[in-house]
């Protein structure tokens, strides 16, 4: 009672408060999954909770989407700009990511977490999926080879950080890209062989990128021999391994990573195939549902910012 704890102890305890479950709870949770394929909330291993996506919320952005997946909530916005392509890839556009997890947006946020690598790790994974591995066809962003190209700046804000952050972030990126309106431009060449880009005056004269084959990220967690999608926090704690993949509708693999969580029961070799196959099926399902929902939406009308 009279004991005084240091601030550091306090923060360790705070962290536990949220995610710690004891061995007995873990055993109870795992048993249902292993014996009956039955999770604590009644879902089967491959059942997602309903994913909510709202696009076009940010008026000042060229495209935006907010994704809610379980407790996780991520907003992605796209800003478009004209840039000069790099010398090494003269016919490629640019894609840049930044992820921010603001303390104002969640009551669960604490500074410790901000210091951790997690959002930065997510940023580098997204960067590698969408830019380096060619998840987005950057040739489509070229305007004049070697001189002018589009640059896409993806700014992600984590409103609430739950599980499956990467899944939600990739869905937000894909939906935001689908929503992005590129103004049609005319290129004028002046006397000095320099190119000038002129935007159209017509606010309805725009084009949109085909986002169908843009990849989505799917993470699976493994409890016993069972793979789970869209895990809860408790399941994440109880899981003994996880796999993260990025695939698109054509089945191309853009990223893959397995995490053994330092456990002796990591991935048995024969389970890797099953894990990949399951993850691809889950990704295909989410991707097809996302695309069919996106296509049924009415198209946006103006490329100009409504606020301007």
């Amino acid at each position, binding site marked *: *009672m009279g*004991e005084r704890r240091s601030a550091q102890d306090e923060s360790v*305890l705070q962290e*536990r*408060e949220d995610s*710690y*479950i*004891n*061995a*007995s*709870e873990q*055993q*109870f*949770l795992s*048993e*249902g999954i292993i*014996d*009956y394929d*039955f*999770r*604590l*909330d*009644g*879902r*089967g*291993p*491959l*059942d*997602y*909770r*309903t*994913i909510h*996506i*709202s*696009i*076009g*919320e940010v*008026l000042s952005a060229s495209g935006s989407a907010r994704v809610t997946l379980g407790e996780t909530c991520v907003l992605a916005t796209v800003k478009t700009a004209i840039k000069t392509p790099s010398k090494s890839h003269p016919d490629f556009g640019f894609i840049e990511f930044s992820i921010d997890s603001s303390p104002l947006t969640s009551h669960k946020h604490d500074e410790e977490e901000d210091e951790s690598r997690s959002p930065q790790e997510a940023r580098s994974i997204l960067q590698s999926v969408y830019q380096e591995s060619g998840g987005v066809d950057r040739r489509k962003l070229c305007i004049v080879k070697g001189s002018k190209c589009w640059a896409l700046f993806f700014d992600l804000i984590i409103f609430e950080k739950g599980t499956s952050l990467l899944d939600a972030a990739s*869905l937000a990126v894909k*939906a935001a890209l689908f929503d992005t309106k590129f103004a049609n431009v005319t290129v004028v060449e002046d006397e000095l062989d320099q190119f000038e880009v002129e935007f159209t005056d017509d606010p309805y004269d725009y084009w949109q990128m085909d986002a169908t084959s843009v990849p989505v990220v799917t993470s699976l967690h493994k409890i016993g021999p069972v793979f789970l*999608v*869209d895990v809860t926090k*408790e399941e994440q704690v109880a899981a003994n391994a996880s796999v993260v993949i990025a695939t698109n509708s054509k089945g191309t693999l853009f990223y893959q990573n397995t995490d053994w969580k330092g456990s002796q029961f990591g991935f048995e070799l024969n389970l890797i195939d099953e894990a990949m196959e399951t993850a691809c*099926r*889950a990704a*295909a*399902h*989410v991707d097809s*549902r*996302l695309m069919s*929902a*996106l296509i049924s*939406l*009415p*198209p*946006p*009308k*103006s490329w100009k910012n*409504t*606020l301007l």
Partner: protein
Amino acid sequence: MAAVSGEVMVQRSAADGSQNDDVEMREVHISKPNTVRNDQIYIPGDIILDNTEGQWMDGHGSYYSVLPGNHSEIIASVAGLRQIFTRVVVVDPLKSRYSGEIGDIVVGRIIQVGRKSWTVDVGAQRHAVLNLGAINLPGGELRRKTEADIGFMRRYLQEGDLVSAEVQKQGADSQLLLHTRSLRYGRLVQGMLLHVQPRLTKRGKGHFVSYETFGVQLIIGVNGAVWIAPTQKQMNVPLGLDAGEQQRRVQQEDYPEEEEITLCITEEDAKKFGAKDKSKEHTTLPQKPAGSSIASLEVRKCMARIKNCVEILNREQVPIHRESIRILYDASRRYEPKELLIPSVAKEVFESVRQDLREQNPTA
């Protein structure tokens, strides 16, 4: 092979220009309602009452503000509902931490084993304390706690263990002191915990709920922690009692043998557990206790349904008690437990019993 399922719902925000081409400046109405409904929610900064004549006093969650021209107002400082006691205006917050009262039944998690006491997280502003003197130890209620008992504290309750307990008293600095000196309280094993808003779990009679027909038992902690577990002979493991668990710890930590037999509280249990202990002395597996899994699929389905029902009640701001859970449970029977996670289904089920739920009195 199991099929992947799950829906993606996409909407275009109404704020997008696609709905109306030009941004329309809508007229902004700032209205002060003349008649105040009792269920109106005030947010911080809202004017609750005009206090020019000085007839009101500011209570919890509200403050008094003097404006130029001899004008003054009572303003809300938290989001919540207004309550007026004679002259005092109080805003009852919608979302708040648990504040304990003596006699509350709470479910908490051990977060620290200290000297002579455990620190328990009950979701209050400060962590609660469970003193070594406030638990029943093997060997009788009135036994003196010795130095040896202090040494064995971690064997009764470890970090991460869940306990049900009662608030014994409130310290001067609003720190709660707990006790588990009853067979009803103790360590909770094999089940799941969920958190709801503490204001929905009102103090009342039925905090220990048993749905015998479903084989499920509940502890609805006043602090908003709800424990759902399959019915066992004892849902709570009185501290240092559970035979299999105890034996496991004994084997792991070389607990003195003679203590083990006196760990049971009633003689009947002592015989039962004592007999069992010997029979499976050499066959205990730490991972899985003897027999198959603790809960059958049927029981797990009931638990999942109860869990989802409690979460709907929590979302819809309805008091959570034995009857409200039962009403929603019955109404949800035509759906699979997992279908209750779909917002439209949850809404439909809830709407079908909204009236029944409203008529329920939490203390009944």
